[in-house]
């Protein structure tokens, strides 16, 4: 279980972004996180993945601190896939950076064999995002922080991506935190949803 307790974070003294935020994500659980731009959703995601250190509070995985080295069990998927890949690497090398996905897994995420020999700039944002999602699903990963990963995709591709991720998550009992402005998407994907406002989390349900 991934647990964040009383997390506080501020970029500059006196300007608090997150105030004593607590959140729990269990294996196989899908949690949605919405909030206005600048509310601190991405920062909370980065905190949970260990990219940023909180000023107060702590994050634990099964009661222990997140590992400082090696493959991180909590993986962060950023909004802009073009920034998440080395522009000098071919897509095949990017995809296999941490593990070697099977052809069936590539197919499930709609990754065409022809993409693998291209450079990232020759792929669209949506195509690149699928590569990033599959890259993050290395064996040993238990939680995913999906930060607006389908914002730049058309509705059909969005559906395909989420379906593939859902299947993989169910198979491996992955816990997923879906960060999005799209409340309809969160309602569809996540039984439990939170809204971040003024540094505080509030639970919300469909009207």
């Amino acid at each position: 279980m991934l647990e964040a307790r009383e997390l506080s974070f501020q970029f500059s003294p006196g300007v608090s972004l997150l105030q004593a935020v607590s959140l729990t994500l269990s294996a196989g659980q899908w949690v949605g996180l919405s909030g206005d731009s600048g509310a601190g959703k991405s920062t909370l995601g980065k905190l949970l993945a260990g990219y940023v250190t909180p000023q107060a509070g702590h994050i634990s995985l099964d009661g222990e601190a997140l590992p400082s080295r090696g493959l991180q069990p909590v993986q962060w998927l950023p909004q802009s896939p073009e920034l998440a890949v080395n522009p000098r690497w071919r897509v095949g090398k990017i995809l296999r950076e941490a593990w070697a996905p099977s052809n069936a897994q590539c197919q499930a995420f709609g990754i065409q064999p022809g993409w693998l020999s291209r450079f990232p700039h020759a792929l669209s944002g949506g195509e690149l995002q699928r590569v990033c999602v599959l890259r993050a699903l290395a064996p040993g990963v238990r939680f995913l922080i999906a930060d607006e990963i389908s914002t730049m995709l058309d509705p059909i591709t969005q559906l395909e991506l989420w379906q593939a991720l859902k299947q993989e998550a169910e198979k491996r009992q992955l816990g997923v935190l879906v960060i999005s402005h799209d409340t309809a998407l969160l309602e569809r994907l996540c039984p439990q949803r939170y809204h971040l406002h003024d540094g505080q989390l509030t639970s919300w349900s469909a009207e």
Partner: protein
Amino acid sequence: MSEAQPRLRAALSLGVTTLLVLGLVASQWLLGDSAQQMQFDARLAPPSLNHWLGTDALGRELWARTLAGLALSFWVGCLAALLSTLIALSLAALATLSPRLDALVSLVIDTLLSVPHLILLMLIAFALGGGTQAVIIAVAITHWPRLARVLRAELLQLRQAPYVLISQALGKSRWFVLHAHLLPHLIPHCLVGALLLFPHAILHEAALTFLGFGLSPSQPAIGVLLAEAMRYLSGGYWWLGVFPGLALLMMVLSFERLSNHLRRAL
């Protein structure tokens, strides 16, 4: 057209500089020992059809000595710039490994930058006993800090790039991140940095040799030619200083222009 212009200029500069270097290399092969051949009946002869750039006090052809001097300066400059770039790159890479190493590298950079490097150059060349090797080492040791500072800043910025952070989160070691993600991005910086160091290295080699701390007086280095010319300038033998000086200026300017154009193009 405006986007293509920097590349066109860089290509032209590269062409001119390559021709210059090829000419220098070919001249050494064709000249043989012409730079050392003395003609006692033509000592201190002014430029003419028989002696294109004139001759020196021992009747040696100045054009042959200038070409030989340029070739020597070129190799000294190349090796010193290469060594300097390697030192800069290694220390910048070291700085990314831990905050303590970063502080140490920054301290060394700041300390070296605070010392006037001509004095340091003379001290190192003198301590190493002079000669080609001493000049190369002295120039290399004193010229890396500025490039190291640029490379370090670039690496520190790159280290925060999302794909680098993701690579670390995917379990990749610091060494892997350094050589697979960070260092390849620095190749253009190193190339331009080395090219910018090259004219400095040549000028400092000439300055050291001129001051007597560099190459041996028996070698036809530009610094040696200029130092010799100083003794005859008051006698009106202007060609002894003007032609080697102009040749040095031409080479320095061609490499300086090439590095500036490449910096804009890359």
